């Protein structure tokens, strides 16, 4: 028995709902068909990509000044857009019509069913099966479903594979996980200390005849930055007023693997005087630095840029204009995830730490004055110290936070040489000023650092001193080389060698490699008496400091990059 049997008024409702069901369904079907046809037509006609319009566009490119043709294209385009949007409007309106009719359909159906609803009749209800057997069958079904779920999971896991190696497997071969101390990651090698990790370095070559010159390759643009070497990749920067670039060479054969032009990141309103850059410094004097995964380069414009070792640009930023009459020449250095920039200038000199992963400034601290020297990173026994020289002082900082540990006013003039360090003593020197040996007393001491000795004889102008054990080597731009005792400053020997030195001496094992401005390398023993091992000609001038790694020397001359090896 249902409501229709004893409620005559409901019959009207029944009839109306039935009619609405049919009507709304018909409307929905008809409008759907029309909309479908319309949509198909839009897709088929593809008015936006009309060949005629394309032809007109091509024609317009050839006759760019033809204003009539330009107007024709615009009119045609407008017509196409109108047709397109009109069709879309029709589709959308049709959609709402269908939605409305479907709502009416559902509501009518609900009314239709409700008036036909039968009264409950318990006698016709299904009989619940025996509880235990019923529950048993349901439980079995649930457990079976669980079994299927787990088996499916097992199958999926068996059939799946991954390209991601396990964490236990080193990600070598990709782009990371290298021990930087075994590479040449900065100016003057690891930590900027001027001491090579590899001692299997050749002692004999001749550039003009090609003896032991493994390869020689041209460098696209000039620069005084020295090479970096990571694994089998060598990085250099170069450039001038118009273009600054970063290069990656293969150490295997000197092939230029990639070359990236650094975009100009100076703010639009910055007034950088390109003519003011001293040719003796150039736009690419600072040596790059690397964390083994990325390489960073900085230029005279203040543009600091980072590339992955594979040549993808990671980030770039401009650090602001410098008040520097020669142009910026301080090299970069990396400590863990930070790229440290000695951004000294007459105005607003700063030490800046940049997050290598994203180029963000992590911290920056103000400094006192200008310099052209580069930072060194040393472990003084109890902590890592970042030691910087400027035109007044030698200062030490916490490389992680920028906190200044100590400072000593032992310098003056236009300081270009970087400091040197060995056995708790740090050394700095500058031409027409003085050379100093300072004892670092360590944290919590007073004074934290003190001058042990000073000298005013034969001091460097550009080449940085280097120290190891009892020996400190200094080379002047006039060609004088001095070997001093690190503890007392006593001069072991002094010799005039070559035509003058801008390239810094590097200690390789028990020998010192020092190249003069003519490209002549002097190799002598690290000892208290002058013992020349050999002199080797490159055959052309060079002012850069070579890189020493894995049995090879990489030298940047004015125009070429040399690889020396046996």
């Amino acid at each position: 028995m249902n409501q229709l049997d004893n409620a005559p008024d409901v019959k009207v409702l029944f009839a109306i709902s039935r009619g609405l069901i049919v009507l709304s369904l018909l409307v929905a079907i008809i409008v759907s068909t029309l909309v479908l046809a319309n949509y198909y037509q839009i897709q088929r006609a593809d008015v936006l990509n009309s060949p005629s319009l394309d032809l007109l566009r091509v024609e317009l490119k050839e006759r760019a000044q033809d204003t009539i043709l330009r107007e024709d294209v615009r009119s045609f385009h407008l017509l196409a857009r109108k047709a397109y949007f009109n069709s879309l409007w029709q589709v959308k309106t049709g959609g709402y019509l269908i939605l409305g009719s479907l709502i009416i359909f559902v509501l009518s159906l609900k009314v239709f069913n409700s008036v036909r609803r039968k009264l409950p009749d318990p006698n016709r209800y299904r009989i619940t099966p025996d509880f235990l057997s019923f529950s048993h069958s349901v439980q079995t079904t649930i457990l079976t479903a669980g079994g299927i779920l787990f088996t499916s999971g097992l199958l999926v896991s068996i059939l799946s594979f991954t390209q991601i190696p396990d964490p236990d497997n080193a990600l070598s071969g990709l782009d990371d996980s290298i021990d930087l101390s075994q590479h040449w990651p900065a100016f003057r090698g690891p930590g900027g200390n001027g001491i090579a990790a590899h001692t299997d370095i050749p002692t004999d070559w001749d550039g003009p005849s090609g003896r032991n010159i493994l390869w020689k390759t041209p460098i696209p643009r000039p620069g005084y930055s020295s090479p970096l070497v990571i694994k089998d990749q060598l990085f250099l920067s170069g450039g001038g007023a118009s273009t600054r670039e970063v290069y990656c060479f293969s150490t295997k054969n000197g092939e230029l693997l990639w070359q990236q032009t650094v975009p100009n990141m100076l703010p639009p309103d910055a007034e950088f005087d390109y003519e003011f850059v001293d040719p003796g410094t150039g736009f690419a004097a600072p040596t790059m630095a690397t964390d083994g995964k990325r390489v960073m380069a900085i230029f005279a414009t203040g543009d600091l840029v980072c590339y992955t070792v594979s040549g993808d640009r990671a980030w770039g930023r401009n650090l602001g204009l410098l008040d520097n009459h020669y142009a910026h020449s301080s090299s970069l250095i990396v400590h863990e995830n930070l790229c440290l920039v000695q951004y000294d200038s007459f105005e607003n000199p700063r030490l800046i730490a940049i997050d290598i992963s994203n180029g963000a400034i992590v911290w920056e601290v103000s400094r006192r004055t200008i310099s052209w020297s580069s930072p060194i990173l040393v472990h003084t026994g109890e902590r890592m110290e970042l030691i910087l020289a400027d035109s007044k002082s030698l200062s030490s900082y916490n490389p992680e936070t920028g906190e200044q540990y100590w400072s000593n006013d032992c310098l003056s003039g236009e300081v270009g040489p970087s400091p040197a360090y060995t056995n708790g003593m740090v050394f700095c020197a500058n031409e027409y000023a003085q050379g100093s040996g300072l004892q670092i007393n360590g944290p919590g001491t007073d004074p934290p650092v003190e001058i042990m000795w000073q000298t005013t004889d034969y001091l460097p102008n550009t080449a940085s001193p280097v120290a190891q054990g009892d020996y400190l080597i200094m080379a002047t731009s006039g060609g004088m080389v001095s070997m001093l005792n690190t503890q007392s400053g006593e001069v072991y020997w002094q010799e005039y060698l070559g035509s003058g030195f801008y390239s810094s001496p590097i200690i390789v094992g028990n020998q010192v490699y020092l190249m003069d401005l003519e490209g002549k390398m002097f190799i002598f023993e690290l000892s208290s008496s002058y013992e020349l091992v050999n002199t080797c000609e490159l055959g052309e001038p060079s002012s850069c400091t070579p890189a020493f790694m894995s049995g090879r020397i990489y030298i940047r001359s004015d125009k070429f990059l040399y690889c020396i090896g046996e």
Partner: protein
Amino acid sequence: MRVGLHRIVSLILGIPLAMNQLMAQDRFPRPDFESEYSKPPINTPPPQSTFYEYLDVLILFLALSLASYLVLKKRSRNQIFLLSLFSLAYFGFWREGCICPIGSIQNTTLALFDAGYFIPLSAIAFFILPLIFALFFGRTFCAAVCPMGAAQELVLIKPHKVHPKVAAVLGLLPYAFLGAGVLFAATGAGFIICRLDPFVAFFRFGGEFKMILFGLLFLLVGLFYGRPYCRFLCPYGVLLGWASKFSKWHHSITPDQCTQCKLCEESCPFDAIDKPEPILSADEQKQAGSRLGKLIISTLVLAIVGGGIGYLVSMPMSKMHPTILLAERVMAEKNGLVEGTTLASRTFHESGKLTSDLLTEAQDLRAKFRTGTVLLFIFMGLVIGLKGIGVFFKRTNLDYESNRTDCFSCGRCFPYCPDEHERQKVLDQQKDLYESIG
């Protein structure tokens, strides 16, 4: 010009709702002027005012209060239905289905696992309020406040029963969905509960084709089987069910003493009425006890096996995390297993980020996934086992009662109870009396 099959199907099935989406996909490209015209900048609208968030919370609270009143005190099916229509209109179409308590599970989870994620207060309120109400009044949120439930209520035309075995199996899905939703939110893989929301495309008059199809499927099934999403997928329903099971007050079929007239027995389209069952004999109790013991052991075994399977499954499951998926793609490209690049891999390469960094991140995420998947499968093992055990405990009642866990408190069963009709008569008489008194 090829017309994709999916577009045709989309039009046939989802024209009304797909229109905006089609418009969005096929939007006319910006004119390409070579000179004389500078393209206007694209403006991003500012974020929505927090006023609406607090208004939503207030309306949720009021709606829950009213729903609880209508279910427990007023016992009016029609008014519950009207309130659900309001909820559908407001939380569904006006607020476009976001934020909703179902999705807020993920916000809450992410906030617990990611210190850097800021969870809005409204999300916390949306997560907690319905659960608190369920603890006191049962699932009144499902009855009249949830817009998704309301949409399914609306389309339910000719209800049919789902076979108990099918219902039991499908009843496992909400637990799996809940677990997966928590796992994915905790690992930052995304909000899959929202991604698989079948109704949001309807509420917004636009969405992905597959989502429209998914929603249409639920609505079509919902014509004949009541609330398929609520019963067989809704992860929040699991939490509400747990809270409702221990609710202080709960919806009851009869306003008085059950006379066991059986008239309500088939009234619930959601199979949420527990019938009285005869007390088991001693033999049957022994038999049931033996089986219960086996089930408890099975549950423990399932949990242990589940943990093992979860460990194995973690690798394929973790590929649903976009970072891991990207790492897989980049490595496949590097190893020459695939040709070309995808938009994601191109973007990665152009970003200058390191493959090793990506892999390290992927490895860390995979480790998190491994832990999460093991826990998820242990959870599923326990759920499967306990569901089986629950079959025994489901039928211990002596009267016709709404199942506290499964009942949506929709009030469909009210008019089937003769005592309810008597109550209404008394109420009407009282009303007449008050009116005659003036």
